[in-house]
């Protein structure tokens, strides 16, 4: 009896916890409402199955627990019941998988008008790069990395000269414009993760990965690293600021291009060394 009640309480408490939990996803700030919707759908289906199975168990324990003289039924198989349950399960699974795959198709199909933004991870900081007037990002390689060129940009690539380089600072994005985030690393795996955007993807040294999203809400959002990258993994933070087009351009105008930074560096190197001493 007690066992049956506790089992039932476990099922009920789980459902109540779900309903009243103050710990829930962060308010969405991107176009991926579909992802949230698929999670909600999955919660409904799996929650119903969980409750049904545990409640059924509780009932069996209550109804068929051993008493003097009870004898179990002899019932090896029931083909019909087993097939019905399998078919029912298959339908439930399809109901989650189908929308999931449709949304995944959207997730991997980058809109043609998406602007590219590069995010580079390294132990343990984030750098960003935006294409300049030509709309293209220059090439890069870990072999070019040096104190003067920490992002490893190709100094001989004309497409890269006007790229806007942002280091030790926040990334700004304009509201409502689809963004294709190009992800790159120069040392180990990292993962550019902003909970409010829902999207995430590992960054791999030697490759460029990507995802896309459209910011739908202005605000400042925390960037975390979601792929273990060594001792200071938890401290690898940055911020993304989503703002109105006008504010964004005001910010963008203040940023430096790769060419400016390299030129400036050449001139200022000596002065910089003196300053820091």
């Amino acid at each position, binding site marked *: 009896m007690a*066992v049956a009640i506790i089992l039932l309480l*476990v099922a009920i408490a789980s459902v109540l916890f779900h309903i009243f*939990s*103050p710990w*829930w*996803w*962060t308010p969405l700030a991107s176009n*991926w409402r*579909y*992802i949230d919707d698929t*999670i909600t759908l999955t919660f409904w289906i*799996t929650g119903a*199955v969980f409750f049904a*199975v*545990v409640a*059924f*168990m509780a009932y*069996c324990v209550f109804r068929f*627990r*051993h008493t003097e003289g009870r*004898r*179990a*039924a*002899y*019932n*090896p*198989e029931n083909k019909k*019941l087993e097939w019905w*349950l*399998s078919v029912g*399960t298959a339908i439930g*699974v399809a109901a*989650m*998988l189908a929308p*999931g*795959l449709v949304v*995944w198709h959207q*997730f*991997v199909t980058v809109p043609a008008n998406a602007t590219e933004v590069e995010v580079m991870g390294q132990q343990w900081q984030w750098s960003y790069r935006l294409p300049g007037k030509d709309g293209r990002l220059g090439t890069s390689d*870990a072999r070019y*990395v040096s104190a003067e060129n920490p992002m490893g940009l190709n100094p001989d690539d004309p497409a890269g000269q006007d790229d806007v380089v942002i280091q030790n600072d926040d990334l700004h994005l304009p509201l409502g414009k689809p963004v294709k985030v190009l992800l790159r690393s120069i*040392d*180990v795996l990292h*993962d550019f*993760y902003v*909970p409010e955007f829902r999207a*995430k993807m*590992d960054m*791999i*040294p030697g490759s460029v990965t990507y995802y896309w999203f459209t910011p739908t809400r202005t605000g400042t959002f*925390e960037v975390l*690293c*979601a792929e*273990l*990258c*060594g*001792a*200071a*993994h*938890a401290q690898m933070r940055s911020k993304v600021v989503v703002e109105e087009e006008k504010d964004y351009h005001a910010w963008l105008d203040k940023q430096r291009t790769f060419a400016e930074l390299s030129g400036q560096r050449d001139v200022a190197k000596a002065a910089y060394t003196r300053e820091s001493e």
Partner: protein
Amino acid sequence: MVDVPFDTVAGVPPAEVGEVELYHPRSWWTRYVFSQDAKVIAIQYSITAMSIGMVALVLSWLMRLQLGFPGTFSFIDPNQYLQFITMHGMIMVIYLLTALFLGGFGNYLIPLMVGARDMVFPYVNMLSYWVYLLAVVVLASTFFVPGGPTGAGWTLYPPQAILSGTPGQDWGIVLMLASLILFIIGFTMGGLNYVVTVLQARTRGMTLMRLPLTVWGIFTATVMALLAFPALFVASVMLLLDRLLGTSFFMPTLVEMGTLTKYGGGSPILFQHLFWFFGHPEVYIVALPAFGIISDLISVHARKNIFGYRMMVWAIVAIGALSFVVWAHHMYVSGMHPYFGFFFATTTLIIAIPTAIKVYNWVLTLWRGDIHLTIPMLFALAFIVTFVNGGLTGLFLGNVVVDVPLSDTMFVVAHFHMVMGIAPIMAVFGGIYHWYPKVTGRMLNEALGRFHFWVSFLGAYAIFFPMHYLGLLGMPRRYHDIGETAFVPASAHDLNAFMSVAALIVGFAQLVFLFNLIWSLFKGKEAGGNPWGAASLEWQTPETPPGHGNWGKELPIVHRWAYDYSVPGAAMDFVPQNEPPAGLSAQGPHA
């Protein structure tokens, strides 16, 4: 009605094995230490696995102390935290669960359940244990080498696993990989034994479709392990070469702490594919023996045949086969080609169907049963609750687009602890309470057992159920301290503290269990040969605990499946597998 007809082997004279003097151990050393008896090897495996498991338990306490009360314990720094999670994960998955289910339960139960005298290659079986022990010693030694154990996470992803930004880069990672290589060598020796024994050494009448589901589970898991571990083996060797000889299997051109390394041209993703080609089947290597054990526990303690035996067998085989084509669902956000997501999401969700069939058949076995709420039965019920819970959250993570926001968060940690941590450990406990009387001849203490059960089940549920919601919130895993993060409310820290307290209490209950294991060995109630009234062969041995060679002079002859419980017309509510058909009345189901 199930198609398990009696056959007419009863007329064949029993196979006699002459007493060969050389066959039995002659000294204390060959009887208890360098023993070739599968039962002794099973106990050696179990004790070793549980001992290293205690280390993993202590590590989990340290982790939870750090997560629940960050900054309070000055002796835990970020590097150590990473070392704790790495060693905890590796020990639990491989050195505890895999070794205990296959080396422990497999060694003890396979020969007894199939009616064999021993494993077919006893000497290799002995070597298997000693190589495993060496692997455990090498693993444990990493706590004492300069730099300590590796902190690369149990997945050991390169490049960080072998670069200097990760703790244990010096010795830890090298010894970890060496230990894994040893473990796989040891396991292969044992695994070949289990497979050949099941296929070749079954006693007369023991057809494959009469095997208890425990044997089916362990057998299928072993076949899978023999196919999956080689992937980990080569990955370990290649990573070791990258680390020691400077090859670049997994290492692209990269910068280490500001300096360009000599590496170039390798692929970090390749390691992930190899790792998860092993790693996903590994989940089922741990789960399938648990499935089998739970099926038998439910059937015995509900006094009812397992419902849908044939479907259960095929479900085990189907899960085993499918688990080799789902591995990349661990890599949805790894940066592999995104179109793989369509394929792997589909295969992953398909695997839910045979798994669900198993769950239905367990609960339908309870239906109209005669449920004895013994401790093994309680653990079986807890297994179903936690396994269903963890299995269902697998439908979130397997469905590629749902995985994107959840992967690498505490949701994943909660999911895999529920499904391949808590659930299989419930099966381990249930199995130990169930078979301890056969192993020792004594029952485990009932009151201590019930205390252990309730604290472990409810406590573990209280740790891992709420943890999902921290993941939903966006809290990443493998953070020693989430620190000041805008989206994490203060209440989340309180929840972390609550889970930590629960973890300490659950850990304490395990000490009670260990005490019970030792105390009952001397003071436990005498069990007799078949205290649960079970039908499968291991309970029909002439001696308890079974002697060397298991069966005395004559091997048993099997006449029926392992689930003849509450057969209409039978005198008792169970009919042993080796009972000839004459013992049944003419109204028997197979007449």
